[in-house]
């Protein structure tokens, strides 16, 4: 690992001033950044440790019925929070389906949102990667990359965003609060991660030095309550990243869908909100036919980026099944295997 300097600032202002320097990076739980520094995929010269910044570690209710979560709250504590479990159960399910208990004890909200892609070519400094090194091309292109994107990718980059947490957040219209050299601003979570286009190295909407200070879950999403689920398909059913995943939420009255949310994970460089699918569901009866049609709409623009055409049909089935699970409602108790298609969630519903 390259040598670096270390600073533990005591205020947001001090942190932002230090991190605005070229070569600086924020260090939170470290579970992603320190790993990448060991492989050599990241080499910051200064780490600004934000884990002790005051005031960023609380979960507070918002007047609209939503929740505000400080950027330093650990993933394990978000998943444990009673209001979160009641109002946004699919967020909890997504978090508990990711990493392991010890990693969730360390990982922060801000770090989870900004975790980098797991693309093996990005993580290997010897490989050409335009996401890591501007203009370097893409050695991953046309490789058999099961993790690679099928939506929104470009010839310059086929990497997918690996976060489980971000998928329900995109469905719930979460807002990200940012402090930077120019003051405070909000960015919609759906706009936080950029699609690669010709500039895959521009990974997020953040400018140098900008710090995530909090995440807001608007009250509008709390209305779905237990009719919201996260479903994650992976190579093994625990402790693995998503091959594809889906967050689905439904509001059904009088046998018709009044409101629907759907977002997909593992398929693009950002959590993929499927607005066309949501529109297709409005007014429909919550049945298999409607869910399949919505899933078709969600994947309409998909195309393989290599040897991964299977992910397109897998994503359709995952989306349709997540919608069916959302319609049925989450069980009283979180399944022992959260978000797993093999969890004990009633009769098997083969998609």
């Amino acid at each position: 690992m390259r040598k670096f300097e270390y600073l533990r600032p005591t205020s947001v202002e001090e942190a932002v001033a230090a991190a605005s320097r070229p070569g600086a990076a924020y260090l939170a739980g470290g579970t992603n950044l320190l790993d990448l520094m060991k492989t050599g995929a990241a080499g910051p010269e200064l780490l600004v440790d934000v884990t002790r910044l005051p005031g960023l570690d609380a979960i507070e209710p918002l007047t609209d019925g939503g929740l505000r979560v400080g950027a330093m709250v650990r993933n394990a504590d978000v998943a444990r929070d009673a209001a979160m479990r009641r109002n946004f159960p699919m967020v909890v399910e997504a978090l508990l389906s990711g990493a392991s208990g010890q990693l969730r004890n360390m990982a922060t909200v801000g770090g989870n949102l900004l975790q980098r892609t797991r693309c093996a070519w990005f993580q290997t400094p010897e490989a050409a990667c335009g996401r890591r090194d501007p203009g370097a091309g893409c050695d991953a292109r046309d490789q058999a990359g099961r993790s690679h994107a099928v939506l929104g990718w470009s010839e310059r980059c086929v990497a997918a965003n690996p976060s489980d947490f971000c998928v329900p957040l995109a469905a719930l219209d979460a807002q990200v609060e940012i402090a930077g050299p120019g003051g405070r601003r909000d960015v919609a979570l759906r706009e936080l991660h950029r699609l690669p286009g010709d500039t895959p190295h521009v990974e997020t909407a953040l400018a140098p030095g900008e710090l995530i200070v909090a995440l807001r879950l608007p009250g509008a999403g709390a209305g779905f309550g237990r009719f919201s689920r996260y479903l994650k398909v992976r190579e093994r059913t625990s402790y693995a990243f998503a091959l594809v995943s889906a967050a689905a939420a439904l509001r059904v009255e009088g046998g018709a869908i009044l409101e629907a949310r759907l977002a997909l994970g593992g398929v693009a460089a950002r959590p993929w909100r499927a607005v066309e699918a949501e529109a297709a569901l409005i007014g429909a009866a919550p049945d298999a036919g409607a869910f399949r049609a919505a899933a078709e709409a969600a994947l309409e623009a998909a195309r393989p980026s290599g040897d991964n055409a299977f992910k397109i049909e897998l994503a359709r089935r995952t989306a349709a099944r997540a919608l069916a699970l959302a319609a049925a409602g989450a069980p009283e108790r979180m399944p022992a295997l959260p978000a797993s298609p093999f969890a004990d969630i009633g009769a098997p519903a083969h998609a």
Partner: protein
Amino acid sequence: MTDMFPQQIDVALSVNGEAVEARVPAGRHLIDFLRLDLGLTGAHAGCEHGVCGACTVRVDGRSVRGCLMLAAQAHGAEVWTVEGLSETGEIADLQEAFVARNALQCGFCTPGMLVAAQELVASAPAPTREQIRERLSGNYCRCTGYEAIIDAVEAVAQARAGGAAR
């Protein structure tokens, strides 16, 4: 380098109940600090990428990956390793159950397993086998097979729950 900030960091923390002060390079990971600087070789460095769980130690009441945390980040923290938890007797029943059920062979994974298992048993009074499986899925064992480990943790969870009820 910006040459504006330190590359050597002073830390003061508590390790297994004892106060420790040291000056560490910024790049020193907690697991290496414990093993190489303090000679606490119970927690192991396996993959060093957060995957295998061999480096699991307790920091401020929670089990964490010692390989993905800087020693500098442990400033002011309370750290417990398998040595300390053995000495206080906190995990004695887990250790006995691991031995009784052959839940270890080479023992490389065991210190991490014990710290993770203790957190699980202490936080979920009557975990199901599925819950134990899920909570230990972040700790790899290359020798024994997991059934014996799950048996041992389950037995301790039941014994502790029974003991509390009586």
